[in-house]
């Protein structure tokens, strides 16, 4: 189809790129404040030392690690889900593709940043590459995450090239940007062929890379001697939880975009229905893993494991633990079974994302504060520093989406168009 006709047909998708009104500036302003504040906080922490956080002994890893695991988890759904849906030709997933891939890239930018915050000497972070020791699980993390970031950025970008070509022709004022990014896209048969080939390779490549990432993230804990971290199911448990929280994030972002940019014509209830079924599958998988993990420890664990387990089930972490169970299972399960409408999915997804953050918290902190030797047991409470950094990350993640949606269409025009042609005959 001619670019002008295509642009007119998908006017609704391109609309957000055309006008920048006051709601945009208010959003940017509101998100920008916590985002910039976190830079100040980081400077404060850098100047004074990590003592300004609530960390100490034995809780020497805390909220930064929670955020690290949480954001890397979110990044999973993106590339993984969109590539699996592409390989299996699940057409209902096409309108979510772009959002899913962008979620991946932005979450992957936010996740490892936490390690930078957490380091005692942040400016020396590159020593991990310079003096890398492959015997350390942290280096496996570094390698896998960097690979995943590269692959998923390529994935997002390559799938966007035909759309950027369209943008270049439709937005003469931003030609300088789109011209460069379109990589000489003309839509010739040879280019299409290469694009399809590239997407095919990336679709397959991204799956093992994504699985490897959360596997090694789980091993940062699973390979340690801490009670209740040293568990063989940690890798699949983390991967499942990652995809679980990731799908929920995609749903939240999609619903917000749909509402704000009036994309009801593309993100239809039946698309959400299917995504809701996928989320339901992962709700059950997550509940299964959580049950198995805790039952095995409770039945066969030693006294050190039991100290951690009971602090989660009925001790000081019980409110957080049971809140997690409610948010990750009790609320979303009935909603996803009986009411996969857009508002129902929104409530379920918000509950899941908060619940999964709590899951990361109740995995990391209780084990640390109940070490093997009883004399070392302690407590942890985050200070304003950790909360500021967390707020900065969340707002940075949202801000990235706001800016992205003003520069690129959040729905893949060429893919929806292709499917329309194929579907319509």
């Amino acid at each position, binding site marked *: 189809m001619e670019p002008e006709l295509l642009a007119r047909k998908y006017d609704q998708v391109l609309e957000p790129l055309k006008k920048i009104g006051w709601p945009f500036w208010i959003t940017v302003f509101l998100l920008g404040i916590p985002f910039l504040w976190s830079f100040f906080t980081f400077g404060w922490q850098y100047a*004074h030392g990590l003592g300004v956080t609530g960390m100490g002994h034995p809780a020497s890893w805390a909220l930064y690690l929670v955020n690290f695991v949480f954001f890397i988890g979110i990044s999973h759904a993106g590339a993984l889900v969109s590539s699996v849906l592409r390989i299996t030709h699940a057409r209902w997933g096409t309108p979510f593709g772009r959002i899913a891939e962008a979620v991946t890239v932005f979450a992957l930018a936010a996740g490892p940043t936490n390690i930078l915050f957490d380091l005692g000497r942040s400016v020396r972070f590159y020593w991990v590459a310079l003096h890398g020791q492959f015997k350390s699980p942290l280096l496996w993390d570094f390698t896998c995450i960097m690979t995943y970031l590269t692959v998923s950025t390529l994935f997002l970008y390559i799938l966007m090239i035909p759309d950027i070509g369209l943008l270049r022709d439709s937005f003469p004022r931003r030609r300088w940007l789109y011209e460069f990014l379109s990589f000489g896209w003309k839509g010739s048969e040879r280019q299409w062929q290469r694009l399809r080939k590239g997407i095919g390779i990336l679709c397959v490549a991204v799956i093992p890379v994504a699985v490897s990432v959360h596997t090694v993230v789980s091993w940062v804990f699973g390979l340690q*001697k*801490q009670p209740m971290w040293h568990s063989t199911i940690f890798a699949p448990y983390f991967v499942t939880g990652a995809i679980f929280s990731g799908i929920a994030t995609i749903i939240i972002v999609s619903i917000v975009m749909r509402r704000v940019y009036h994309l009801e014509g593309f993100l239809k209830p039946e698309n959400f229905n299917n995504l809701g079924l996928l989320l339901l599958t992962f709700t059950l998988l997550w509940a299964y893993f959580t049950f198995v993990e805790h039952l095995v420890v409770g039945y066969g664990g030693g006294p050190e494991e039991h100290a951690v387990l009971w602090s989660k089930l009925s001790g000081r972490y019980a409110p957080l633990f049971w809140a997690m169970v409610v948010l990750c299972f009790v609320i979303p399960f009935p909603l996803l079974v009986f009411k996969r409408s857009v508002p129902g999915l929104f409530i379920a997804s918000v509950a899941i994302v908060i619940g999964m953050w709590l899951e990361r918290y109740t995995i990391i902190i209780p084990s640390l504060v109940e070490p093997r030797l009883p004399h070392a047991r302690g407590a942890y409470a985050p200070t304003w520093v950790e909360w500021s950094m967390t707020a900065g990350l969340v707002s940075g993640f949202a801000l990235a989406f706001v800016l992205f949606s003003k520069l690129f269409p959040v729905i893949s025009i060429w893919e929806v168009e292709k499917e329309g042609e194929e579907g319509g005959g």
Partner: protein
Amino acid sequence: MTYRWGMVIDLDRCTGCQACVVACRQENNVSFAGEDQSGKGRAKFWMNLLVEIKGRTYPEAEMHFFPLPCMQCDNPPCTKVCPVEATYKNPEGIVAQIYPRCIGVRMCISNCPYTVRYFNWFPPSWPQAYEKGLNPDVYRRRKGITEKCNFCIQRIRRAKEGARKENRKLRDGELVPACGETCPSEAITFGDLNDPKSRVSRLAKSRRAFRLLESLGTEPKVYYLKEGDWDDGT
């Protein structure tokens, strides 16, 4: 044969005076955390003294003491997780920290089952009067890095230099870390575990000897002699 440094702590002799804690702090420039920071878990004790009180009133009340330095594991969990090899087991079996290399990841801290690794949450500080007395042989560390007991490695180095001048090996008992030197009840014995005749080797074979959390397979080189029947390990 190289040395393999080990320590035996006789719990029956320990009176809980904490002289080892003070001497260690002095020798190794271990900084002061202060009451407020100690409450937040930032206190550093390269040598710590754990106290257990059983019963409330005399004569039922019992106190038990447990000095806790780094266990200097032969199979240390901390060294393998460091992504930049800032900690390693040296050829003489000491688990050492390379301060300039450390970037403060703290995975070694979380993987230490004995919780005897300490982090510099703030720049190290001492009371002003105390600063004049800091040990010039020991680096004072800086904020953002991990530190730990290293069996007074500076003393080992100096003693070996002295012995090398005389072209001989170190004699048993010639070398003691600060905690062992100061212990008034001589509860701490230090020496070469590779020398079967050394006092530390003999005591480590005592019927009273045990190691902390032995089941983890960390193979500590710090042995404890439990309270009870006397046995000189001969």
